[in-house]
C-alpha cells in the first residue's frame, strides 16, 4: 500500500505501540473533560494529552520516519518543546480568568483574595 511496508517488523510494532499509547492517553484526557465535575477539575484532564499523549505519538513519529529515511529524524523535539511550554501558559490563563470571575461574583467555592493581595504583582 505504501512505504510503511518497508519497515522492519520490530520498528512497525514499536511505532504502532507508541502511537496507540499516545492515543489512549489523549482519549482518557478527553474523557476526563467529560467526566470531571467542576471547571477547575476539568483543567487537569487535557494535560494527559499534552504530556504522555504528545510524547508517545512524537516518539512513534520520530522512530517511523528515522527508520523509513534511514537517518535520524528528530524535529519532533521542537514540537515537544513548543507544546510543552505553551500549553501550561494557556491553562494558567484559563484558570486565572476563572478565578478572577469567581472572586468577582463572590463565589464560596474559591479561596477569597486577601486584602493584602494585589492583582498586579509588585516588586
Amino acid at each position, binding site marked *: 500500500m505504501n512505504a510503511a511496508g518497508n519497515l522492519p517488523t520490530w520498528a512497525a510494532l514499536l511505532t504502532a505501540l507508541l502511537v496507540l499509547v499516545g492515543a489512549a492517553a489523549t482519549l*482518557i484526557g478527553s474523557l476526563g473533560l467529560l467526566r470531571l*465535575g467542576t471547571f477547575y477539575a476539568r483543567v487537569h484532564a487535557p494535560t494527559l494529552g499534552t*504530556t504522555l499523549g504528545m510524547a508517545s505519538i512524537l516518539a512513534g513519529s520520530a522512530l517511523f520516519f528515522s527508520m523509513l529515511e534511514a537517518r535520524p529524524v528528530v524535529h519532533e523535539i*521542537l514540537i515537544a518543546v513548543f507544546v510543552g511550554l505553551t500549553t501550561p501558559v494557556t491553562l*494558567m490563563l484559563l484558570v486565572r480568568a476563572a478565578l478572577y470571575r469567581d472572586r468577582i461574583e463572590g463565589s464560596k467555592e474559591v479561596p477569597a483574595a486577601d486584602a493584602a*493581595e494585589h492583582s498586579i504583582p509588585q516588586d
Partner: protein
Amino acid sequence: MSGILPYPLLSLALLILWLLLNQSVSAGHIILGSVLAVLASWAMAALRPEKPRIRRPGAALRLAGMVLIDILRSNLAVGRIIVRSRQPGVNAGFLTIPLDLRDRHGLAVLSIIITSTPGTIWVNYDAAKGTLLLHVLDLVDETIWIQTIKHRYERLLMEIFE
C-alpha cells in the same frame, strides 16, 4: 557578556532550533542560523530583560529527569482517577503553599513544571507574601503535595537560580 553575544545561551538555543527545523548540519545552514541567532539576541538585548544565571547545570539536568518521571507517574495517577473513580474530581481542592523561592526565572520554571504535571495547576502567586495558590485534582493529603513541591522542586530550583 561581550557586545557581540549578549545572550550566548539564547543564541546557541536558536542555532540548534534552526538546525533542527531544517534537518541539516551543512555549513550553509550553520552560517545562516548563526547570523539569525546573533541578530535575535541583539533584538532581545534591546528589551533589556533581567538576565538569568544558571549556577548549577548539573542540578538542572537532575531536575529535568525528575520532572519527566513525575509527569509520567501523574499521568498514570490522573488516568486512573478519570477511568476508575465513580465520582472523579471529588477530592479536588485548592492548596496554599508558602514558597522561599524568589527568583523570577525560578518561579517561571516552577509554574511550567507544576502546570504541565497532570493533577496540579498553578493558580496564583502572591509576590508580597510569597505564597502560591495551587489547584490539585487529588487533594487527599495536603502535606504530601507540600513536601513534593518544596523538597523535590523548590530546593533544586533555588540551587540553580539563586
